[in-house]
């Protein structure tokens, strides 16, 4: 194992899959000559050439659709959105064309495409650039969605996504690109299955369900809860939103009997709403307290730093919610 950044992990995943399969190509804005807006594709143009690392004009609908068309005839496109906030310009391609094709064609055309890029609020980017899109896309049958929070998960999930025969959204986190973590050596084939959550911290009093940017937040809160409140929190990182690892959620909740879901999206029809519904449906009697959710406030994202902070989930909000479900 060695320590690398989340960005480097994604870069390695791309390079390994490009080297492995000649049908894989990377397309998007600034991915080639600029080396990626967030430098995730650094060095790939030099290594793989302009045939496979393709700069596009600012035409999300156009190049996302190109990816779907290329996938129909056997290529395996990786389409980078500079941010998933821009994927709305290509919404029709992502929700109508990519996931519907298999059904509409009676099983003749599967779409092995990866849409990837940063997702979720970053820092003071304002309303248009701060969208957490996971709950929107999770509503669409035919899409798979993963949300890596660590360098290891970023590498392993992206590689799996590229090899999957269905459309997969890899929702990265801008705020995590420079974060570091331990990852297997480069010659190790790291594939992490979609739909498999991971316990990031064991505990006995409460389960904190989290993903993406809320994972480091949950881990920090769990430390504080342990030290200051003597509450032992278990931190379950979903890693994939769809398929959802219900089994792992139920296993943890059956042990702790208390749950807080901390999500980076908005509360109305958010990911946490689905998680809550499934827990109460399956193991209502195992719950010792109502489930609480910590999500964004239900407002367009303000630019002002203090207000933005008030909108976002935070360790303080999470700790308060945990104390409430623990009746302390």
């Amino acid at each position: 194992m060695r320590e690398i950044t989340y960005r480097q992990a994604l870069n390695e995943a791309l390079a390994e899959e490009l080297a492995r399969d000649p049908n894989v190509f990377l397309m998007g804005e600034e991915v080639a000559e600029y080396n990626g807006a967030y430098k995730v594709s650094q060095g790939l143009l030099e290594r793989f050439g302009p045939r496979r690392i393709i700069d596009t004009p600012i035409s999300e609908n156009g190049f996302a659709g190109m990816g779907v068309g290329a996938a129909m005839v056997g290529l395996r496109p990786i389409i980078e959105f500079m941010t998933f906030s821009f994927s709305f310009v290509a919404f029709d391609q992502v929700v109508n064309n990519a996931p519907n094709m298999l059904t509409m064609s009676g099983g003749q055309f599967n779409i092995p495409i990866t849409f990837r890029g940063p997702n979720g609020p970053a820092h003071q980017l304002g309303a248009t650039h701060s969208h957490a899109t996971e709950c929107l896309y999770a509503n669409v049958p035919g899409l798979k969605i993963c949300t890596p929070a660590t360098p290891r998960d970023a590498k392993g999930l992206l590689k799996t996504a590229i090899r999957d025969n269905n459309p997969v959204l890899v929702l990265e986190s801008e705020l995590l690109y420079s974060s570091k973590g331990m990852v297997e050596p480069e010659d190790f084939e790291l594939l992490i299955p979609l739909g498999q959550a991971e316990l990031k911290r064991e505990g006995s009093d409460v389960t904190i369900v989290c993903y993406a940017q809320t994972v480091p937040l949950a881990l920090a809160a769990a430390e504080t809860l342990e030290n200051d409140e003597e509450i032992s929190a278990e931190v379950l990182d979903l890693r994939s939103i769809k398929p959802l690892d219900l089994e792992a959620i139920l296993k943890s909740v059956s042990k702790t009997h208390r749950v807080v879901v901390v999500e980076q999206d908005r509360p109305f029809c958010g990911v946490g709403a689905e998680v809550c519904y499934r827990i109460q449906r399956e193991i209502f009697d195992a719950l010792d307290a109502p489930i609480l959710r910590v999500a964004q406030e239900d407002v367009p994202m303000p630019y002002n730093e203090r207000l933005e902070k008030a909108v976002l989930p935070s360790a303080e909000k999470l700790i308060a919610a945990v104390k409430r479900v623990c009746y302390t």
Partner: protein
Amino acid sequence: MQPPELRDEVEMLSLMLLIRRFEERASQQYQAQKIGGFCHLYIGQEAVVCGAVAAARPDDYLITAYRDHAHALARGTTADACMAELFGKATGCSRGLGGSMHYFDKEHHMYGGHAIVGAHVPLAVGMAFASKYRDEDRVTLCFFGDGAINQGAFHEALNLAGLYKLPVVFICENNLYAMGTSVERSTSLKRLVDRAEGYDIPGTVIDGMNFREVRDKLGEIIDSIRKDPHPAFAEIQTYRYRGHSMSDPASYRTKEQLEKFRGDDPITRLRAQLTREEKLTNEQFDKIDKEAKETALASVKFAEESPEPPLEELYDYTYVNGSAS
């Protein structure tokens, strides 16, 4: 023994007749409520897709919008599979899961059947991209209506195709109406073909009621693309005799206009050309028309007798199993 080219023209006339007779039957079955959803008929436009198919190779990629019955039939999808799809049956070309607007036939290189106006034009560019990526000499034929040329996806796609010099023919089937809105009321251009100029893509205007002109002009375009990959744009002027869909009485246009185009019917025209040149007798025409009618009628029987897609398979087509080897 007829020389190949002449045999082909009679064959293509048969195909145009099959498309028309098929759709007449579809119309009848729709009115009998055997067919659900929307149903958009191509009657009047047959020479466009038939001319294109005659000019292309069978393995050239073909993709179109929602008025797609003719495109599948022209590519070789059977009338049985097409009618069964309208009936929502498991034997349909999309297993009864797609319907009228979503015909697919991978074996015959028919890539749909796309019902969001303009949304498939980027897909066509992606298919052409794949041809170039793999150094194949396939050309992509991308059909759409005059209504699509005002969609953003169309403009983005043309720019991308022009930028990357991709082997695709954008075939605008200008039937003068986007649903009920005439070209004059929807488009700032006088000549639709001028859309192509903005992307430095060569454009051609073609009489879509004349099979030979469609075939020959598209043939030249396709040949030149095959030699040296680039996009091209063809505005094919045509007319649909029926309304936008089955529920549309088309009261936004005049009887005179309809009669004018009917008088220039593509089937009548090709028949007259062949008859004049003594390549087709009235008896031969009657025979192929009778065959077309019989095939269309038989397809209704086939569709009626076919099974529904099984309920147990409801979840089988949302995701495909497995991954790249």
